[in-house]
């Protein structure tokens, strides 16, 4: 491929968004619009005729390199099989609060986290990591949440006491006050 086509390939690959032709032209001030266009054509043709798994596509006003549609489904299916989902930071934090403070009601969790946790509680319940274990005293007898046996199983813990104590962990990670 020509040097300009190689540069365009690298730029498209590194960019998080589609790039318009004018922006691609700005990469090399010495290249004429016609040269940029022909480098793009060269890149597209190279992908098409040389048998690549990707193609150059016009995505809403800009160019991007996309994996060919015939491979996307295979890739997604295989990725799911070997690359399991991860919990979001919000879910992990809520789960952490429940693990260390159970039984605990939604209002108390929201007080600690400062945000609404309704959706997170629902998804953690659906995942089978938490469950309603009892009801609290007081107004409206709030539902109290606790972790499930599946939670323990996930971390290969026999019982909750095997979790490191929250305070020692926090102390270990927190910068100590300087001794002066």
């Amino acid at each position, binding site marked *: 491929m020509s040097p300009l086509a190689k540069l365009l390939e690298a730029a498209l690959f590194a960019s998080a968004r589609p790039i318009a032709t004018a922006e691609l032209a700005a990469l090399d001030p010495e290249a004429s619009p016609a040269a940029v266009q022909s480098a793009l054509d060269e890149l597209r043709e190279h992908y098409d005729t040389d048998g690549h798994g990707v193609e150059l596509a016009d995505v809403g006003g800009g160019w991007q390199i996309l994996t060919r549609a015939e491979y996307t489904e295979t890739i997604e299916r295989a990725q799911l099989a070997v*690359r*399991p989902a991860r*919990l979001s930071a919000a879910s*992990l934090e809520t789960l952490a*609060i429940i693990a260390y403070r159970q039984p605990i009601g939604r209002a108390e969790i929201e007080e600690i986290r400062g945000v609404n946790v309704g959706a997170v509680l629902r998804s953690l319940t659906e995942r089978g990591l938490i469950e309603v274990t009892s009801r609290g005293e007081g107004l409206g007898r709030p539902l109290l949440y606790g972790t499930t046996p599946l939670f323990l199983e996930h971390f290969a813990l026999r019982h909750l006491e095997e979790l490191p104590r929250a305070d020692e962990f*926090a102390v270990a990670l927190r*910068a100590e006050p300087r001794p002066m």
Partner: protein
Amino acid sequence: MIQPIDPHAVTAPFDAPPAGFLIELPEYAGPLDLLLALIRDERVDIYDIPVARICIQFVARIHALGLNEAAEYLEMAARLLRIKVQMLLPRSETDEGWDDPRAELVRRLLEYQQIREAVDLLERLSEDRRNRFARAYIQASDAPPIAPLAMTLAELLAAVDRVLRVAKEPAVHDVIPRSLDVDSAIATVRAVLLLRSHARWRDVVRDGAEPWEVLSALLALLELARRGELRIQQPRPFAAVEIARESTGEAA
């Protein structure tokens, strides 16, 4: 702690950073790094360090850098002085059992030097990787099915730490005085009520608002209620606060 050096004996050329700040110097990664630099600059043998000379240089350097508050550097200065004192203690020339008081320091310096070599290597590797970009564009895909869950204990513990830090931060940090801004909050509430006749607390206070913002919004609501521009009501205890435009009381 031991305070072997009067920090006011020599006037530091810069203002010393306030005590209690984490000091990270661009010049030196720590007292051992400074010491190694001195040993190189002074061209002395690491196995036969002239302690008095190096100690004087060390103290001069930390004063020059305005490091008088850095406990770790002062501790190293104290250690050098102690070694010098030990070396001055009388001993017989034939004393076979004499341990060089510098031995432990030399061991630490060599170990540290080894780490510095590793740092140089990691720096090169990281620079090399930094100069190559990974793919950044994420292709849209149709609703991906639910995958099995991956979660490590380390992740859970890191979450505990985040929660504790956020929950406890106000208690351990200095309060930054920040005056309330009721006027802006009044403007926000009015803007919201201009668009709709009813609003909720969440509409006038953003998620994650700072305490001063919450207080400003609260005072703004009370003030506007007093002026008759709106009504505030809570249908049940703990229910969301409802804010309603008072049509009769349109203020200028």
